[in-house]
């Protein structure tokens, strides 16, 4: 059976190297394939569970769509900035209350800094943004509008790609920064200083605070989480539909693709998974190899 066609001797072959045997070095006997194992530790996915998990991707996509919709409204002057500020304030308070309510279930008073520190952070956000909004207003004045749009698109895409979907609560630096960069670019195209301020506050709400609340929802109220995701998706499609029906159709297609088609593909293609493990020495590098690179 050996690859080199060794003669069948009387001595049985043993898988040891320290003993001299009448076999070539690359000889293996019939027991070799008996130890073959396939698809070890595989998890069988259920379609609806995957769809539910994919909902967070869809809702993030919709969040970006909602943000763009708001910006479109602001740019055309359909939405006065005061209204947006009031809506933002109301939703922020609502969200904060909800966040507190969901937190108090398990770890109620483990973090004593909460209220004062949150107020402080909010003050910093607001004062900083308000102070700098004239600067943001004139920042991209000389830059071509197309450039600004392209930059915003690239940055929003980077936000979507690098968003930590598994654990959105401490927002990933790159995703949050990219989203904020894009929102600054977009906000600088708005007609007034207050518009810019309102837009940036809204961006803070959508990109920084909303994922925190979403994480709480997913942890503590998973049933409502699905509903929230569906609601956000519908709001996103609907909002975009009021401004550009083509965009809404595209968004709906993308959402359908991400939340329904992709899980279906995953589940269907799982049959073809064929991962073999065996008695051979497979090089498994689990050490930190970065130290060899220097």
């Amino acid at each position, binding site marked *: 059976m050996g690859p080199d066609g060794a003669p069948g001797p009387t001595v049985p072959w043993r898988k040891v190297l320290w003993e001299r045997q009448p076999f070539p070095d690359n000889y293996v006997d019939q027991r070799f394939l008996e130890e073959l194992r396939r698809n070890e530790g595989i998890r069988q996915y259920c379609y609806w569970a995957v769809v539910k998990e994919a909902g967070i991707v869809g809702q993030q996509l919709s969040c970006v769509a909602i943000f763009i919709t708001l910006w479109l409204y602001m740019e055309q002057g359909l939405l006065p900035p005061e209204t947006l500020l009031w809506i933002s304030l109301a939703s922020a308070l609502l969200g904060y209350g909800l966040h507190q309510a969901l937190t108090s279930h398990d770890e109620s008073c483990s973090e004593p800094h909460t209220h004062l520190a949150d107020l402080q952070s909010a003050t910093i956000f607001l004062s900083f943004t308000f102070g700098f909004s004239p600067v*943001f207003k004139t920042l991209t004045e000389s830059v071509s509008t197309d450039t600004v749009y392209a930059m915003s698109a690239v940055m929003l895409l980077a936000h979507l790609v690098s968003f930590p979907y598994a654990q959105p609560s401490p927002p990933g630096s790159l995703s949050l*920064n990219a989203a904020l*960069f894009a929102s600054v670019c977009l906000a600088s195209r708005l007609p007034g200083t207050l518009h810019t301020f309102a837009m940036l506050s809204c961006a803070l709400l959508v990109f920084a605070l909303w994922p925190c609340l979403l994480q709480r929802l997913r942890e503590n109220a998973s049933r409502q989480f699905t509903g929230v995701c569906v609601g956000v998706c519908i709001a996103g499609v609907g909002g975009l539909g009021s401004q550009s029906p083509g965009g809404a159709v595209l968004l709906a297609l993308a959402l359908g693709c991400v939340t329904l088609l992709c899980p279906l593909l995953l589940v269907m293609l799982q049959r073809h998974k064929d991962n073999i493990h065996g008695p051979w020495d497979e090089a498994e590098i689990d050490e930190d190899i970065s130290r060899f690179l220097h």
Partner: protein
Amino acid sequence: MVLKVFFPQCCNRADSGLLVGRWITGHDSAVVLAVIHYPFIPGQVKRYIQQMQAQSGVELSVLGSWSLPKEGQEGMESFLRDLSTIFPQERWLQISREIGKTGFICEIMSQNGKKVQQEAKNKSVEEEKDTGLGDGEKEDEEKVIFVHYEQRKVMLSQLHPTETGDHDPKSEPPSELRQMFQTVAQSKPLFFLDKYDDGPLKSTHWQSEGREASIIVELLKQATVPLCLLVTWLLSIWTWICNIKIFSFWPLHFLSSKLSTCVQLSYRTEHMRILSSPKPAVGHTQFMRKANILVSFLVDVALGILLMSWLYRDNHVSVLANTLVPVADHVAKELEELLQWLMGAPAGLKMNRALDQVLGRFFLYHIHLWISYIHLMSPFIEGILWYGGLSACLGLTFALSLLSDMVALLTFHIYCFYVYGARLYCLKIYGLSSLWRLFRGKKWNVLRQRVDSCSYDLDQLFIGTLLFTILLFLLPTTALYYLVFTLLRLVVVLFQGILHLSVDFINSFPLFALGLRICRPYRLAEGVKFSVLCEEPGTALHLLMEINPLKGSTVVQTYRTPTYSCYPRDSWAALIKKLFVGELIYPWRHKTTKTD
């Protein structure tokens, strides 16, 4: 073995006598320094040699005998052989020359009087050279090579590379050639014995053409003593003034270290201190250093006086002053136009209009201030130039340094612009680089000197990103201002650098050494070359030793007076990196201008 005899050319036709010289230890060679003629009393010769040995520090001895029979004089063979018993030596050279023949005949006697070598054997040196036979069969015989040297040149020349003062005993002894040069140079006292002196001994060697000619030199030497004293006294007063406490206060001290005139003054003081030191120069290097400094100083002063004579003739000073103010005015006007251009859309670039206007107005205000300053100064410019021109009598270097300082003062506005631009740009670059790390969720670990990942708070991320956006969009405007002003600054720095370079050139160029190399090439020797003098069969090989003069580039390299420009400075890459990062560059550290 081959015995080398270094024989002075001046002794070629000397009367018969004793050969005085030195055996070079470790090498099989002898240096003949002089011939003491008959008749002599052996005791006097011995005493004379001891005396000379004490004076010169060279292990002098009687090497052998020299005979050049004249007409009617013969039969000295036995007498010469007997001499070797009077002056007991390990080896006794018996060199003779016959009238009409060019070659010498040499016999070597060992201590016991046995003749080691016959004259006929000398021939074998050349034969062996021709046939290429090995030393094997003639190993027991000694051959003699005569190397003729010019005693005066060898005595005066300095073999390079020069040795440092203290010779390390552990290292290998100096080479044969170096020892030979040293021997000849050190036995100067031997050559003082004049041919026409009425002493008990008569000898032949090199001697100066006449010591009377050097009376003028001696007089000059005497005259330098009070001069040195005067200069020392003046220097002490000057040092005392410099050390007054008021000059060591911060602003004055700082200013004086930056003004190139002050720097030049301190160098000149240092040079004068070296020149006026009452101790005579020890060793060749120090002597050359002093001479170089003196010649550079004299040339410098001569050039300075030439400049002065031009300046004060035909009222050139006022002409200069009258052109200087309009030129400065014109520069300011040009700058103003440049700023106006920058405030628009320079080269089609789109700048941040608000920041552009702010920066442009800021700089315009500066130029306004500057023009008023120039107009305030204009009545005094002529006076300043007139009195500044007087400094040329101290040397051209002073005038150049003063010019450099004046250029620095007149372009102070450019310097100010440059500093503002560079500081702003530097701030932006550093801010952007650290915020870019924040943007990617990294931070700089100071302890480990590397970039680590870091989880930032929400507010840190928010504010950091907003600042990053602001800095990024404002960077082109700042960078353009920085670029334009850096180019202006570089032009000024280049001009100042050329001035500094020429000052430095005058200060450090070894004029004396170069002059010596041109007029007396043998004084600075790099090595020697040999040429065959005569190949007469039956006599020893005669070689003529000539001195190879030092190469001009080596002269400059060896004798350059070390000055501040010799310190290591930034490479081009480091300079470009500095410019890119926005660090300030200065001419007075000689960082940008020295082009090798």
